[in-house]
């Protein structure tokens, strides 16, 4: 027996969601498979990531564009890492070892500062300040409580501030 909660609202959003699905499902699977040990686990992560994205589809203006592509990767990475933790509850996992490794060669100094942040800090800043999600929405996409997300966002800003100061950007 499989049970799902679906919360897609308008016809435009439904169409948007399907375009997003068609465009990025294979990329999302590729990213998930680099983190998870089996195809089935990776498919589970892709499914769960799409369920999360469906709930927040209204914030996506263009379903097929680099920005949305990056969002789908972020969500499926987080979902995959969380699933891996469930599968290996006793193993120590360094999140820096998993997921897409950003290419820093063409990154600006400012971008490098943000990329140096621990993955959870980076994720919350990208969701809130790049994709325009509220802290509450970001919490739902990341699978954490709103309070935890709020603290994380605050801490991430402070961490980034320190890194920018050290890089003499501020």
């Amino acid at each position, binding site marked *: *027996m*499989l*049970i*799902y*909660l*679906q*919360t*897609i*609202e*308008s*016809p*435009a959003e*439904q169409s*948007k*969601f*399907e375009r997003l*699905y068609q465009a990025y499902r*294979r*990329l999302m*699977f*590729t*990213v998930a*498979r680099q983190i998870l040990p089996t*195809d*089935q686990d990776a*498919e589970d992560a*892709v*499914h769960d990531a*799409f*369920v999360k994205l469906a709930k927040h589809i209204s914030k996506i203006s263009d379903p097929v564009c*680099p920005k949305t*592509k*990056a969002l789908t*990767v972020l969500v499926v990475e987080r979902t995959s890492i969380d699933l891996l933790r469930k599968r290996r509850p006793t193993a120590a996992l360094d999140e820096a070892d998993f997921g*897409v490794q*950003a*290419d820093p*060669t*063409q*990154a600006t100094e*400012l*971008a*490098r*500062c*943000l*990329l140096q942040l621990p993955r959870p800090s*980076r994720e919350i*800043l*990208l969701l809130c*300040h*790049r994709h325009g999600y509220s802290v509450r929405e970001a919490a739902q996409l990341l699978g954490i*409580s*709103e309070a935890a997300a709020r603290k994380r966002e605050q801490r991430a*800003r*402070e961490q*980034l*501030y320190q890194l*920018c100061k050290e890089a003499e*950007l*501020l």
Partner: protein
Amino acid sequence: MIPDELLRQAAGEAEEAILAGLPEETPHTFSPRFCRRIAPVLRRGSHPHRAAARAAGLILALLLTGFVWLSVDTQARNAVFTWLRGTVDTAFVYRFHSQQSVQSRSCRPGWLPEGYREVKFWDDDPGFSRIYENDNGDTIFFQYMFGYSGTALYISDAPPPTSIQVGDLTADYYPANTEGGKNCLVLIDPSANILFNIHANLTQDELVYLAQNIIIENK
């Protein structure tokens, strides 16, 4: 504190670097299991013209395609403000239809079998979940959803439910269809427009008793 504008710029530039590091897509044929699971999420997107129907027309269409009313009073039907149960392919679907949303409240079981304690609360408004666990690792999944336009609960890979009484209300009971699987009870409180989904290794009687003793509190 880092200025917002600088933060947005950093996020945009960092994202470009992340995109530059993306792996090449590997060919993959998604399994039938995945396709079956993702279908309910996509289904309405495949037929946007159907979803475009206005409430009254939509209800007529749903009735014509096999949807049935589920224990709602006349006033609620007239107001087009209710949960509907129907079937889509092999899935049973509970969908809320209204132009307005229902205010969220806090719900919890007023009774639990001995030894169970709450281990997780998940606020995913309009759906909320509480998970209870005993020392043997048995879990009770207690989910409640408030009427919110576009919200739907899908139950697939399940045999047709049987109607059972929970106090004055009629609930749907889905017995486990796999060895060691969980029984499921879906109950709609039409006065509060809340849908409850209880999924556990409990007997039908225990599920009914649990559902009869749900506490609904104002937030």
